[in-house]
């Protein structure tokens, strides 16, 4: 399941996402602050979320990422 560079990167990304979106890393953003007029916590959540999307897109859509050699029947 975790063979190949793409798989390993995705696994790492998964772990990173799990950590970033939960206690305790999530608690770092839990302050009553305003950034650019917007509340910090929701902003952070959406920001992290967007960053994860970009990361996944990069890992999976790069032309150099390994294509599975076997094809479906």
């Amino acid at each position, binding site marked *: 399941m975790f063979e190949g560079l793409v798989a390993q990167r995705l696994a790492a990304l998964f772990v990173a996402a799990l950590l970033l979106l939960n206690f305790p890393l*999530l608690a770092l953003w839990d302050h009553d602050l305003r950034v*650019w*007029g917007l509340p910090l*916590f*929701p902003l952070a*959540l*959406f920001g992290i979320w967007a960053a994860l999307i970009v990361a*996944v897109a990069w890992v*999976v859509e790069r032309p150099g990422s390994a294509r*599975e050699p076997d094809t479906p029947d």
Partner: protein
Amino acid sequence: MIPVALVVAVSFAYLLLLFAVAYWADARSRQGRSVIGNAWVYALSMGVYCTAWTYFGSVGRAAGSGVWFLPIYLGPMLAMILAWMVVRKMIRISRTYRITSIADFIASRYGKSQLLAGLVTLITVVGIIPYIALQLKGVASAFAVLTQPLGGVASPAVPWWQDTTLYVALALAGFTIVFGARHLDSTERHEGMVAAIAVESLVKLVAFLAVGVFVTWGLFQGMQDIFAQADAEPRIRRLLLFGQGQPFPYAQWLGMTLLAMFSVILLPRQFQVMVVENVQEQHLRRAVWVFPTYLLLINVFVLPIAIGGLLYFGDRPFNPETFVLSLPLAEGQTALALLAFVGGLSAATGMVIVEAIAVSTMVCNDLVMPLLLRMRRFSASRSGNLTGLLLTIRRLAILGILLLGYLYFHLAGEAYALVSIGLISFAAVAQFAPAMLGGMYWKGGTRRGAMAGLLLGFALWAYTLMLPSLAKSGWLADDFLQHGLWGLAWLKPEALLGLHGLDNLTHSLFWSLLVNLAAYVGLSLWRPPSAAEASQALLFVDVFHRQAGARPVFWRGKAQVSELRGLMTRFLGGARAEQLLRDYARQTGVADVAQIVPDARLVQFVETQLAGAIGSASARVMVASAVDEEALDLDGVMRILDEASQLRAYSHALEEKSQSLERATAELREANEKLKSLDRLKDDFMSSVTHELRTPLTSIRALSELMHDDPDMDGAQRQQFLDIIVAEAERLSRLVNQVLDMAKIEAGQADWHASNVDLKQVLEQSAGSMAETFRERGIRLVLSLPDAVPMVWADADRLTQVVLNLLSNAAKYAPRDTGIVDVHLWADARRVSFEVKDNGPGIPPDQQAMVFEKFRQVAGDQHYRPGGTGLGLPISRQIVEHFGGRLWLTSTPGQGACFGVELPLDARGRSEETH
């Protein structure tokens, strides 16, 4: 408020539009020009995850607890990160083994168990009912908001035959049947439905964004304004923090996230669009980040809308769940409100259609069919086309599901917020996670484990979540809720074993999954898997590692094509059956359908095709009844597997072998050629040597016999004969010696006695010993020797041999009486050289190389037999070259021959080597 008729008309118009899209897409697919075969449509179709819940529930949740609407969408983000591996494996497995539903997947994995299939289906049906109810509730509330005066009191409950929601449910059932149960497709692909869903996703997104934009920049001055105003109100301000007063908020947060993560894959509608409807695996690559983007976009405005609504309506009792409608309405934006309604309707209908189709497939294939097959009366009748029956079952299932959804809505829907209802369904399908994911990656998972896990997990879910929800709505006595079952406090459904403090969802999730997983692992490890389970486990877990050709077929027995054809006709229809058989014939290289070999592969092919129509468990049963099978035990499975892997290993080794064989053959051919030429050489040599030896022997023998037979031979004659005999004997021994010499030198066995040699001395001595010969023939021998030359490192005797050889050759070829033989010696810095030149006939250029070959003597001069052996020059050359020198010939025909020899002064090193 908006007139009812308008709302209804708009709704119908929209649904007709969807239907048109579906119809068009189906028509295109029949033509072979599919519109859904691209990654963007695939990704959009996943948007069916967003239902009325997203439209109404999220805003409601946000208004109540801030960011706590988000975990439902963060979970899918997590799932999509791993989806490229996990979902792709599901797709590969499903495509390869014709799996068309979750129930089929799980049942097939654990040995094609009909019991498991039925259980999964039941769990799904029970679990999904609340979710369907949620959609109906959403549509009903939306409808009420639109058509009643704003802020009006919610209408009192009406008896069910007057309840518009019922008719909504029936209408939805009708549409679903039209979308998905018009005809039977063994691949369970519904191209029209997928196209319609993709369109719906777009409509949902656009509508929600429109409302969001309206609220943010229409009602307020942008996001900053909303939050600035929110800051002024503490009750709103606190929504923007994480903690909302729950105990263990982070556990709850994690719980919901994980729950959503499982659900995005295990919900029937998600499995349907992600796995069953997938056209090409590579589309998943795009979808894996496009789908989360969609979720992010549709959620961007949830908080602004919620907070905007709270600010706008202040303390007035407006249900936050319908802010998307009430806000535009309050500002008189009826068009926008209608758009929002259409969006919400879209979300609800999308979910209902796909979910109902998926679940009805399961019900038909995995619940009803197996029961029907058990009835002997049914299986006994081997005639008749069952496709009509299958369709009817599915249509009835769709209707049934929707009616059950309505029932739940009627009974329990009013008491609960939408979100909570949805989460109950999530928790139900989450019970599939251990069996499904474990089955994909762990060969050790057995049917017993899966059954136990599912049963216990489902039981706990029902006890801790489902029943309490009914009790809280007043439809069940709630003392078990307050005091635990039978009054036992530690059996309280929302505080099992005294675990209190968690909200009921996290609590239920924890216990049900824990027990599920423990039972699954425990029972799987307790007893080894059966043959069927082991073979299926291998096929599933290793699906990426097996190529089509080498996939082992786990079946032994005898079959008949006619029986199998009959089966296919019964369940797939005659035309389709024939088409499939023709395809199979083509695949296996058989000219005609009548010549198909009824072997294990055919049986597997037929079974796979049937599985698409009636589920793999039922297909297994049907095929087993139609053919003559041998029971396959675990050993049999292992043997088949061994064969398959051995075959693969053999063919690999065979390829390598044949390649190295080719190389070896080429090498061998080369070596053979070399050997043959060497052999020829040796043969020539041998025959030359024997010929040369036999010739003098012949004279000796013949003359001896003659003398022996004639005692009275004349004395002079006798003398002549004896002379000849002696001469020939000498010749013979000379030849033998030379041959031996040659052989020893060539084999490196010769004895060399190297020392410093004075070439001048050698020449003089040799000339002296040959003087008589020269004088006899009247040939003048001229020596041109310097006073002194440097010594060379060589074997003196051997060099003498060389000089004598050259001199005797010269003596043979120089003309009698007029012959002159010049011997010339000189030296320079690096070498000492001498020449022996005669004025004989010379040697033509084409024969000059031959002169140094063994036994070759110059042809040309016919009668002049030199009396030599033909070995002299070759030996001389060997000797000279042994000491690092050269022996060469220069000659022009008619002007004599000149043999030259040079020996280096520093030959010492080289001469050491060859002893």
